[in-house]
């Protein structure tokens, strides 16, 4: 791994340098190229690109030892070259293991640039092949995303209305706006919206196109595709093998299932469709969607930044936002150091003893930002005293990069470095903070992907101004006020809850 990585990275950098040189001077001339004008296919060409004055000296040193040295060099080099191109794994053993190894598209910065084709609308006991590939319930599904589940169920609802339930272990790639590629595993597709007609699931051996229906597809361990129709009909098209195997297309009706498999007949490979009893159990509904037990919190405001309701409050309480330069990117609010958003009205937290703020964020850079704050109104507004706020705080890059959650007016901020929650850039992260007015403590919970609770801490906040109660003031997203500490990155699903 080390040698291969070193080689690839160095080669990449060197190639980049070459391209830069060529770009800056396309007519670049190499000082010593004259000797290279001869046909390059001749294996015995000799030329000296470097000081020819040394040439005569070489002959003097051509005794046995240097030759042996060269021989050793070449043999070692050959070994390296061979090792560089040798497999290191035994593919056969990986049938099970591969479930555990995930693609990590989920965490790349590319996500924000990708085209969102749907959302994850349900998950049950999802075990991911790689924790970093996890995603949260309700998360966007970008085009090209791969999901590798080792167990559990995940439901994706495409923007077209088509729905799939992936049943782990499964490897599924969202390869189009209205379909996907499943290389192994099992899924159920449900297409009720006429807009989603033509929804297609590809497997290595077949393509199942929906004609308005509910159906199941499995790619089993042998690589055979099994398709079953529950309602309506689908068209199954066999991916051509070397020999055309009739019939290449078959329409399946309700309660029919077929198997596409390869068989060798008279030495030729045939890909055949055979009627099959449904050997597999398809999950057709996400069972008992796990609802979080009510913990006594009332929903006060919820900004989802979705579609045409970019500034709307989904809680039904009417706390809509006023936009000052934020943009809507992939159904999230995107800030570029100059924009902010502010609730149009004051949000009354005074009746509550506990307040919980939760949000998703995708940081573009690690520098000082205000993520959100309450009471830090725009310059000149009457709300100048802050009560609640969250910052990305970079005090000293080696020690103090963190999310800090505060109360008070911010003056005691420098004393609050003990709560370090290291944020990452270009990754969607979930945070939730609970402020308790009676103990004057904040319980900060960092939640990371799939609702998995990673870090939790309690600390006393605001040694400056302990408020008697929460206040009534507008919320600002992406900035504290019009002058300072702008946010760069995205914020999504911002939720304010209170407990009386």
């Amino acid at each position, binding site marked *: 791994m080390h040698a291969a990585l070193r080689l690839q990275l160095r080669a990449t950098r060197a190639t980049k340098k*070459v391209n830069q040189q060529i770009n800056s001077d396309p007519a670049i001339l190499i000082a010593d190229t004259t000797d290279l004008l001869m046909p390059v296919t001749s294996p015995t060409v000799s030329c000296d690109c470097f000081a020819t004055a040394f040439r005569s000296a070489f002959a003097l040193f*051509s005794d046995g030892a240097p030759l042996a040295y060269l021989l050793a060099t070449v043999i*070692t080099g050959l070994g390296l070259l061979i090792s560089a191109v040798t497999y290191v794994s035994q593919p056969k053993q990986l049938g099970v293991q591969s479930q555990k190894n995930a693609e990590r598209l989920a965490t790349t910065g590319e996500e924000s640039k990708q085209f969102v084709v749907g959302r994850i609308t349900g998950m049950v006991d999802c075990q991911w092949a790689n924790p970093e590939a996890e995603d949260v319930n309700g998360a966007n599904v970008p085009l090209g995303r791969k999901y590798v589940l080792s167990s559990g169920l995940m439901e994706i609802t495409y923007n077209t209305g088509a729905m799939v339930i992936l049943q782990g272990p499964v490897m599924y790639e969202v390869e189009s706006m209205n379909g996907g590629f499943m290389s192994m595993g099992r899924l159920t597709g449900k297409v009720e919206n006429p807009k989603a007609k033509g929804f297609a699931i590809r497997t290595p051996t077949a393509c199942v196109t929906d004609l308005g229906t509910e159906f199941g597809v499995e790619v089993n361990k042998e690589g055979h595709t099994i398709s079953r129709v529950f309602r309506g009909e689908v068209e199954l098209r066999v991916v051509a093998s070397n020999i055309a195997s009739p019939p290449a297309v078959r329409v399946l009706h309700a309660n029919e299932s077929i198997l596409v498999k390869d068989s060798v007949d008279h030495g030729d490979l045939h890909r055949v469709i055979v009627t099959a009893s449904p050997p597999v159990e398809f999950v057709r509904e996400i069972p008992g969607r796990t609802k979080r037990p009510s913990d006594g919190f009332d929903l006060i405001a919820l900004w989802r930044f979705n579609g045409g309701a970019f500034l709307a409050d989904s809680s039904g309480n009417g706390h809509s936002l006023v936009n000052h330069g934020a943009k809507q990117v992939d159904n999230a609010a995107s800030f570029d150091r100059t924009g902010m958003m502010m609730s149009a009205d004051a949000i009354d937290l005074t009746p509550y003893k506990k307040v919980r703020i939760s949000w998703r964020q995708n940081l573009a850079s690690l520098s000082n930002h205000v993520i959100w704050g309450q009471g830090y109104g725009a310059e000149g507004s009457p709300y100048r005293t802050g009560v609640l706020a969250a910052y990305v705080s970079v005090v000293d890059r080696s020690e103090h990069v963190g999310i800090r959650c505060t109360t008070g007016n911010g003056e005691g901020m420098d004393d609050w470095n003990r709560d370090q929650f290291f944020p990452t850039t270009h990754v969607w992260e979930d945070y939730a903070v609970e402020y308790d007015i009676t103990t004057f403590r904040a319980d900060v919970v960092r939640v990371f992907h799939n609702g998995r609770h990673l870090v939790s801490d309690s600390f006393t906040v605001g040694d400056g101004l302990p408020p008697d109660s929460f206040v009534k003031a507008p919320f600002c997203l992406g900035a504290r006020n019009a002058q300072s500490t702008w946010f760069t990155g995205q914020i999504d699903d911002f939720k304010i809850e209170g407990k009386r």
Partner: protein
Amino acid sequence: MNNQDRHSLFSQLVAHHQNELYAYIFAIARNWDDTDDLYQTVCLVLWSKFDLFRPGSSFFAWARQIAKITVRNFLKHKQPWTQVSDELLDAFTASTLDARCSRPGSYMTALERCREKLTGDDERLLNLRYVEDLGSRQIGDRLGRPQQSVCQSLKRIRRWLLDCVKMELVRQEHSRETLS
């Protein structure tokens, strides 16, 4: 073909063969820094001679010949006490003919695909480690991070790459088996 097209074709060809070419040069030069310089020299020679390249013929075979000559002359200059035997080099060159790194299904291709999925930060860390050859302490100083955290990040990236490569190989194997 205008210059733009020429360059774009050239950089495609180079990018496709960069790992093999780099490995070939390293196998003879046995020194990363020399290999870096030699690789760039070879590429610029290839570029200046690109008009002689016949599309359809093997770019790598051509590049390897240029590389062989360049590296040999370099070694003669740098280590005049060694005599570089043309016969040996030719034998070596011939033996690398089939050692193609860039064919699909190879470890190197899988690694490359996996590397493309790394985040910018991870890629930067790998570059500091493997290209600039810094130790974890130096990287930590450079990034203002504790050495321990750099070590762990590197470990995590390598483990992830290893897992990804394994899966990529399975995937390629799988699609070859089922499609062929």
